[in-house]
């Protein structure tokens, strides 16, 4: 044991001599690579003196309280102290080797170095003192304990500064001190100090500050930053490919030169993009954010990294929740803008419910209202005065209200107004000019007001930071065609007479119509004033005219009478189950079928003839029979091939009155529906039967040729 102690002691003295030598000739010493490895072992070695010294301190100060022999305690303390000194010396040597690697120049480093050296020598000194005096006594003298404590303090200081070198100066208290990220003021931001530097500060300065400058690069000062480090300047031009900074940032994380080094906090994608964008734009230290062109990605990245700029802090207290709830009604809504925000937004609905108190009741929360919509409300003079109380108002909508220039004076006194909408009000250019003096105004809407276009343009030129929106102005240049007029009634069939009403959705349209089948025009056709009656088969054609518009498209409707109504009628063969309407009655209900043959007003027969019989209690004379059929060749719906009309006094005595084959129009010319008119003269008819046969098969040259055709009938007229 003694020999080991002696050996260690001798080695200790040797180390200490070496340390002194090193310190004296530090600047001329060059550390070879193999010894640099020892230097790198410094973070490993430093743990040993820490533990050993703490143990020594514990035993030295409180050892006599233990239940062991004091001789043992003293031996332990001696050994521990010796090992402390020895390992401290080794640590210091390693530390000195490490420091020669370069990059350590700042005050923190100096503190660390000298406290470390002090630790080594002081512990050796204390060891000597122990041997000299303490061994001979039963208890350790107080000086010894004080010495141990001092040593402990020096150790803690060395440790603190060392950690500061590795992790950053305020590493210890950083969690408690909190991130002092001030909210970014986008309007006043300067790109480098406000956007780029905080990233460097957070992720790079630990190793690239005056205290510790790895690679000879210091990033805390703009001049030094421009100079760069040992490997060269950080950028040469605004090319990001040639920039050393960007290259190192973009290297694969496994690469040894990737910055920040693996294991340290990395830059996020947005932070990386921001730095790249800054270098690409010329790496200027002074340019403010507002000068950067708006389509530069820096703007979006600034928001992405630092948060949206308008998370504003409202500087007024929140209103009482009960008051706010009490102010809500079905016609007035008062709500916070978002959860937990004191700012309120107000909306009014239902102009009939707007009373004198509606606005004045809100003065209870006047300070908190930030956004308000009074659109369409019947505002009064009293409301104008009340409005002056809402000093924190930022957005105000006053569309279609009786607001005029005097209101603009009241509004001009609200300092925080940013957006005002005055569309459809009586505001003139004087009022508008007053409003434009507001400091924070960004948008004004003056559509449908008295302010003329040229005045607006002039004001817009004078106030470039405000958007004045004038909206759509009808310059009389755009002329649109009117849409088609409407003809009522919807059904084409009537019994004896029908009252026809013509209308047009746009007000003030002149309707010109004809009843003789000719095309109407604006001079010769009749002018529609009131509904008129027709009592025979008529084709009504109508067009609309109005000045400032092109004439409308024509609406055409054919009306067909059906004077003789049967008392009973029967379908002698059922219609197709999908299109059975309301049975046989569908054929005489005077209701036209629509475009959709499945609407229940058409009877459909597929490949089979329609066989319908009509019974009249009183004998009638007939002249024509009309069958209204649908035509849609693409859907296999064709007019009938043959129609037979049988008539007589009863079913047995019925004879064939006539047999017609309707004309089959070409597909391009076939109308959507037509009334097949059959002249069939008969006297004293009490029983009438129609046999309507379809095309089976559809003739060649027509769509779906070869297939059986459908027949769709919605009405049969008997005259």
């Amino acid at each position: 044991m003694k020999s080991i102690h002696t050996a260690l002691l001798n080695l200790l003295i040797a180390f200490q001599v070496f340390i002194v030598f090193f310190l004296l000739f530090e600047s001329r010493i060059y550390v070879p690579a193999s010894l640099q490895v020892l230097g790198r072992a410094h973070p490993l070695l430093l743990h040993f003196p820490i533990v050993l010294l703490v143990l020594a301190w514990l035993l030295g100060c409180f050892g006599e309280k233990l239940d062991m022999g004091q001789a043992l305690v003293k031996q332990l303390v001696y050994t521990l102290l010796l090992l402390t000194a020895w390992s401290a010396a080794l640590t210091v040597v390693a530390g000195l080797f490490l420091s020669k690697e370069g990059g350590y120049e700042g005050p923190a480093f100096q503190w660390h170095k000298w406290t470390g050296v002090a630790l080594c020598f002081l512990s050796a000194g204390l060891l000597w003192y122990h041997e000299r005096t303490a061994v001979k006594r039963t208890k350790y003298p107080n000086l010894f304990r004080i010495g141990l404590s001092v040593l402990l303090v020096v150790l803690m200081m060395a440790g603190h500064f060392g950690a500061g070198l590795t992790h950053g100066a305020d590493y210890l208290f950083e969690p408690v001190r909190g991130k002092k990220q001030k909210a970014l003021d986008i309007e006043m931001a300067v790109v480098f100090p406000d956007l780029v530097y905080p990233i460097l500060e957070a992720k790079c300065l630990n190793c690239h500050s005056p205290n510790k400058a790895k690679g000879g690069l210091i990033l805390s000062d703009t001049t030094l930053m421009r100079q760069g480090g040992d490997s060269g300047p950080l950028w040469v031009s605004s090319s990001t490919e040639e920039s050393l900074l960007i290259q190192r940032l973009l290297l694969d994380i496994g690469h040894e030169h990737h910055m920040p080094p693996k294991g340290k906090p990395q830059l996020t994608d947005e932070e990386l993009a921001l730095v790249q964008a800054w270098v690409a734009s010329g790496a200027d230290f002074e340019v403010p954010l507002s000068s950067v062109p708006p389509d530069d990605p820096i703007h979006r990245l600034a928001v992405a990294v630092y948060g949206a700029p308008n998370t504003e802090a409202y500087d007024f207290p929140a209103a009482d929740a009960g008051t706010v709830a009490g102010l809500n009604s079905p016609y007035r809504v008062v709500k916070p803008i978002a959860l937990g925000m004191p700012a309120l937004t107000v909306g009014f609905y239902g102009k009939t419910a707007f009373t004198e108190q509606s606005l004045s009741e809100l003065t209870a929360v006047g300070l908190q209202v930030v956004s308000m919509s009074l659109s369409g409300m019947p505002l009064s003079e009293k409301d104008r005065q009340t409005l002056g109380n809402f000093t924190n108002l930022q957005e105000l909508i006053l569309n279609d209200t009786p607001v005029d220039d005097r209101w603009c004076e009241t509004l001009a006194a609200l300092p925080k107004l940013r957006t005002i909408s005055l569309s459809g009000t009586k505001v003139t250019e004087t009022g508008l000019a007053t409003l434009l003096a507001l400091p924070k105004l960004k948008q004004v809407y003056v559509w449908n007001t008295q302010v003329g276009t040229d005045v607006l343009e002039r004001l817009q030129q004078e106030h470039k930071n405000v958007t004045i929106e004038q909206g759509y102005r009808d310059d009389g240049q755009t002329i649109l065609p009117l849409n088609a007029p409407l003809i009522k009634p919807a059904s084409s069939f009537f019994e004896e007479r029908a009252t026809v009403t013509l209308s047009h959705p746009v007000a003030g349209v002149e309707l010109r119509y004809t009843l003789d089948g000719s095309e109407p025009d604006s001079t010769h056709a009749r002018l529609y004033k009131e509904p008129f009656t027709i009592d025979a088969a008529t084709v009504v054609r109508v067009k609309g005219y109005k000045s400032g518009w092109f004439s409308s498209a024509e609406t055409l409707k054919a009306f067909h009478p059906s004077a003789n109504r049967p008392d009973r009628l029967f379908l002698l063969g059922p219609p197709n189950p999908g299109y059975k309407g309301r049975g046989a009655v569908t054929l005489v209900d005077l209701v036209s079928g629509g475009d959709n043959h499945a609407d229940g007003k058409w009877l459909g027969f597929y490949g089979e003839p329609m066989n319908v019989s009509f019974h009249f209690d009183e004998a009638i004379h007939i002249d024509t029979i009309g069958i209204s059929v649908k035509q849609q060749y693409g859907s296999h719906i064709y007019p009938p091939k043959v129609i037979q009309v049988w008539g007589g006094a009863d079913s047995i005595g019925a004879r064939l009155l006539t047999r017609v084959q309707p004309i089959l129009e070409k597909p391009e010319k076939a109308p959507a529906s037509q009334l097949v008119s059959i002249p069939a003269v008969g006297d004293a008819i009490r029983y009438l039967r129609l046999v309507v046969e379809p095309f089976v098969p559809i003739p060649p040259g027509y769509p779906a040729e070869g297939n059986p055709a459908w027949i769709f009938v919605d009405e049969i007229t008997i005259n």
Partner: protein
Amino acid sequence: MKKDGMLEKEVEQARLYENRRQFLSRLSIGIGSAALGSLLIPDLFSGKGGDSDGPAPGIPHFAPKAKRVIYLFQSGGVSQLESFDGKPKLREMMGQDLPESVRGGQRLTGMTAGQASFPLVGSYYDFAQYGKSGAWVSSAFPHMAKIVDDLCIIRSLHTDAINHDPAITFFQTGAQQGNRPSMGAWLSYGLGSENQNLPAFCVLVSKGRGNGQGVYAKLWTNGFLDSVHQGVQLMGGPDPVLYLGNPPGTDKVSRRKLFDKLAELNLLQFEAFGDPEITAKVQQYEMAYRMQTSVPEVTDLSKEPDHIVKLYGPDCLVPGTYAANCLLARKLSENGVRFVQLYHQGWDQHGNLPNEMATQAKDVDQASAALVTDLKQRGLLDETLVIWGGEFGRTSYCQGRLEFNNYGRDHHPRCFSVWMAGGGIKPGIVYGETDEFSYNIVKDPVHVHDFHATILHQLGLNHEKLTYRHLGRRYRLTDVAGTVVKDILV
């Protein structure tokens, strides 16, 4: 040899020791599992209790940019190749087959799976660039081309479904299977209606003249949310909301008394059974009563001034047309309806595309542009989010007859175009890019879930926090996906 007595002590000690050992080992396992749990479930110990499963507060989670949405849904699948995604390469390669490398195994619908070849067909309509962003818009949409500086055209939208029902259901409810709450229902649940006298969610349907697919109540359903959140369809015609008026012989005063008594009876029932549908019904009656005054006021189109009629086109006075629905949408939105959904059918051009596209475009072009302009001039565009688009796009290859002026296109889910305006969306930009065939997305894809997340974000809602617990798990509009597309936000 030890005696029993001594053994006892040993045994006793052994047992205690055993217990100690067991206690410690179980303790360590327990603590270890808790630690593992807190790693896997990050806020296991935070005491936050996760998202609240109760009703949403009715206030946005953070300051919103938009307060209301108008969604102009073009049902049937608008062809992006004839609207906003012009591809001259297709004209050059007219008639040639779609390269297999581009198609990349995209599944075909049953309608074109039988085709022997997939010949490419170029757009019949010419494209030109408009506005500061130089957006390409086809000649079929001249009015939209004029307002391109107010629009954000997203060309890189993509969906998973290839047929109408799953695709449109996906867009409206966030899932291809039905019976989930629709977008408007989620917004009504999350934010409520601004105006208590009108429903929070209104639906307006118009038929187009092209080949149409139906829209049905599943698309505006409340799903598993309270039935107060379902969409109210306003009909074209004199009676926009069916059965709203008083029956002949009754008047407002007697109706009021009727509703009061009815509410009392319903409350008794509610106290007995606690069925939330009962309170929903009472609320509906109350709202219907208020709607008797508010709806006729809002839907009365006859007093619109001439310049408005000119802006939207004269069709805006004919109830049931798309233009009339747009005008109505503006009026409803102005009066505080949170979500107005329009449907315009007829965009499913499997054949006869150039003709049908012309008529369809004529129906919607002027009115949609007018809606944006009208909102803007009233200062409402910043707080209203207007969306225009369909449920998927159309293929670059032809379906059916191929002539330069008569061709059709099949469904294509992998890329299509949609535009958004107002509501805090950056105006005058084009986002996303497709390849030269408009078949695959090359840059910035936006999935339907991302689209939904962005819409909710603009309304001040965190799409991951607006949830509802149903059948044992929390549901949300974006289901389990969706990231907000920050690049298109102001």
